[in-house]
């Protein structure tokens, strides 16, 4: 069915004028009149995407939760020299009160002295979890950004130039894919350990770009055969301009979606690495290292296990939901029928 009346592609629906002849207007397609907009507001591609994204309930709720977690983590214990509103430090030990159990209660709502409890040496667990969240979020976003850039460039070059460029880049991608991710990350993580958290993030980015590279290459392969690329080339446009002005902006949907999903997987990968002892080094903590550190305390002090776990879950889930929402928003074939 090719009839534009069937609303498979919703972005085409709001401009009902155009195509044919209007009985009211002059001969043929009115050349002077603005047929498209008068009766209905028309949306640009980006506005449509935003509109669909804002309507995605799951993504919107996730957005709120993620922003809340981020603000909580940053404002509570502060960043670097800037102090936060929480008076305890994650490195300072204190007396263990009441076996270190959490003082947080919901009915009536009170934070108490140690809302998330204390660890075995009396450190405030809320401060520890907040610090872990900070580090995990940092790693996640750095990895997400870096691996997206690497994947996009490699996929874009391979898809556009074909030939030996593609062979070399895609075999390199295959090479990274066939080595088990955890092993590779562990080895690289060991090497980069001396550079601290940033080194770890860099190493993780170096092993997680492969999926996006393949996706982008596929997109570029199909886009480079489109006529607007042929016509750009026919007017003498250079390769660099074709790639960055004509092709990559059209793959932005795939890229953004993949970036959010890689953020979620980076959090989980860092958690796994820290759990195995290859991730963040003490005295610094990440959510994963907190779990790994206190795994033996699970039976006696379960909250040492639960709180970081809860935060990992919240971040990974919300980022995934946001990715889903973006995918739905960017994919015009997503057919949502209200009314």
């Amino acid at each position: 069915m090719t009839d534009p009346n069937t609303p498979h592609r919703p972005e085409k629906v709001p401009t009902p004028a155009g195509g044919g002849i209007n009985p009211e207007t002059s001969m043929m397609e009115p050349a002077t009149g603005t047929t498209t907009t008068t009766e209905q507001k028309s949306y640009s591609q980006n506005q449509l995407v935003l509109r669909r994204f804002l309507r995605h309930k799951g993504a919107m709720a996730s957005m709120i939760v993620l922003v809340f977690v981020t603000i909580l983590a940053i404002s509570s214990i502060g960043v670097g020299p800037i102090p936060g509103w929480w008076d305890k430090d994650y490195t300072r030990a204190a007396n263990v009160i009441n076996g270190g159990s959490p003082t947080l209660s919901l009915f009536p709502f009170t934070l108490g002295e140690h809302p998330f409890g204390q660890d075995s040496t009396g450190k405030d667990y809320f401060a520890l979890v907040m610090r872990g969240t900070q580090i995990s979020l940092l790693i996640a976003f750095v990895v997400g950004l870096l691996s997206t850039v690497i994947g996009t460039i490699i996929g874009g070059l391979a898809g556009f130039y074909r030939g030996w460029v593609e062979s070399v880049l895609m075999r390199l991608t295959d090479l990274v894919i066939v080595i088990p991710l955890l092993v590779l990350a562990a080895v690289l993580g060991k090497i980069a350990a001396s550079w601290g958290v940033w080194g770890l993030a860099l190493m993780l980015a170096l092993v997680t770009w492969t999926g996006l590279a393949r996706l982008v290459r596929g997109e570029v392969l199909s886009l480079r055969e489109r006529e607007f690329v042929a016509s750009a080339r026919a007017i003498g446009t250079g390769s660099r301009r074709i790639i960055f002005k004509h092709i990559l902006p059209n793959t932005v949907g795939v890229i953004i979606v993949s970036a959010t999903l890689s953020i979620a997987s980076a959090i989980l990968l860092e958690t796994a690495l820290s759990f195995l002892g290859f991730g963040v080094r003490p005295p610094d903590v990440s959510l994963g290292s907190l779990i790994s550190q206190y795994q033996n305390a699970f039976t006696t002090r379960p909250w040492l296990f639960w709180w970081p776990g809860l935060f990992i879950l919240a971040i990974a889930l919300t980022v995934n939901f946001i990715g889903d929402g973006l995918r739905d928003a960017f994919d015009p074939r997503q057919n949502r029928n209200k009314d």
Partner: protein
Amino acid sequence: MTISMPGTEPVLSFTDLDVKFGTEFGTVHAVKGISIEVRPGEVLALVGESGSGKSVTSMTALGLLPKNARVTGTITVGDQVIGELDEKGLRTMRGNDVAMVFQEPMTALNPVLTIGTQLTEALELHGIAFGKDADARAVELLRMVGIPEPERRVKQYPHEMSGGQRQRVVIAMAISCNPKVIIADEPTTALDVTVQADILDLLRSLKDKLDTGILLITHNMGVVADMADRVAVMLKGEIVETGTADEVLTRPQHEYTRRLLGSVPHLGQGPGQFGTAPVDQEVLPEGEVPALEVNKLVVEYKRLGKAPFRAVDEVSFTVNAGEIVGLVGESGSGKSTIARCALGLIPAESGDVKIFGHSFDGMRGKDAKALRKRIGVVFQDPASSLNPRFPIGECIAEPLQVHQVGDRRSRDAKVLELLDAVELPRSALNRYPHELSGGQRQRVSIARALTLDPELLVADEPTSALDVSVQASVLAMFTALQERYRFGCIFVSHDLAVIDLLAHRVVVLQDGRVVEQGKREDVLLNPSEEYTKRLLAAAPVPEPAEQRRRRDARHELLAQLGDEIVELHVN
């Protein structure tokens, strides 16, 4: 409204049919209370431009609309009312009572199943024949639609057949269960004109011999004139005019029908049909270099493990400055390949293409860019030849940007001048391509092609993706622009009537070779080659009487050439 024929009950009728679609942006009213009926042995043509709701109407007869459609009104097939049938009843009805012939036979057939399997599937599902009987019946059906060696063909896959044969298979599937009515949704739009004439012959003999009613959906007035007994003209979900084919096509009552018919280019009437004609081209002065010189051009496509495919074979022609040369041919004749080669997008295997005396071969960066500056290009589908993320203004200014011509202000001025030239409102500047209609988009790509005042324009089927009324206005504008800017042009088209309208000279291509070339009048009115004659004879004109005459003339020509006239073989 309809002409009653005593004694025949309609096999398909729509009464007060109304279809609404619920979408993200509110309700779209696709069909607004129409009533039509099809009788046995009759062809009703449902005519309209894209978006008029004709396909939606036909889909309701099969109960095949998407879930967000709300259908009211009564649809009856034979004595069954569609709305009252459950899913099982609908399945029995589809194929048994109503069959469908789709536009694109390649996608309508399953590529991984043999022709035989697909034919017997329909027979077995409807309990008409099983096992060996079904196989025999499949062979029989292929023989009926005129496919040679049906015993061998049933074992083949769709890709092993030509487009016309595939469409015959689709028709064979449609008649496999002896349906009362066949819905043919643009059955020949994807086919070449000679194949189209054959398929129309087949459909015509089918309804005569099997007494099947046909609901023919098409936008091509020539096809209507060739096939239809009665015509219903659809506009924006409403039927504006019905009547016999003769009445509607020769004495149209409604203003829209008149406009629609007025926009169809008539083969043989030459230039000036839409008010503007290209200026007569004087003889090229001695010593001036032609805009494009193609000399013994050979283009080959490499294939893995097979000999390369020769798409263009020793083609030679020239385009002088200020001259429009039409490149005509059926699909696979190499016309688009030549256009792309002239743009330097594909390398030539041997022979050469000279643009103003220069060749892209061995040319590097800067020189090639300077040469490209003198060429403009318009592609077939404006939806894909404009970058969806560029606003119109940026699209048109892109060539200026690439060649770094002028500053921002002079570029803006140029863009506005071009928008005026292609008769688009200046407000279109900040719109995105998807916000414009097909015709407006094609105007944008023509404007972009003219940005650098090219001396040579390469137009690859610039109007074939457009509705006929839009095509008329784009063609009128095109000739007016050519008159103003005097660019030389290769105009690639499969539509002889369009070429007739604007070309100075015509090159007819078949299978990558030049069959005939010469002045427009000579080639199109007085062809000397057999292939050109066939092409011209197969192109339908939108007047029933004239088309009947042409059809008989074509059958005579085919008989002369020793070809078979396609018909349904019933024993």
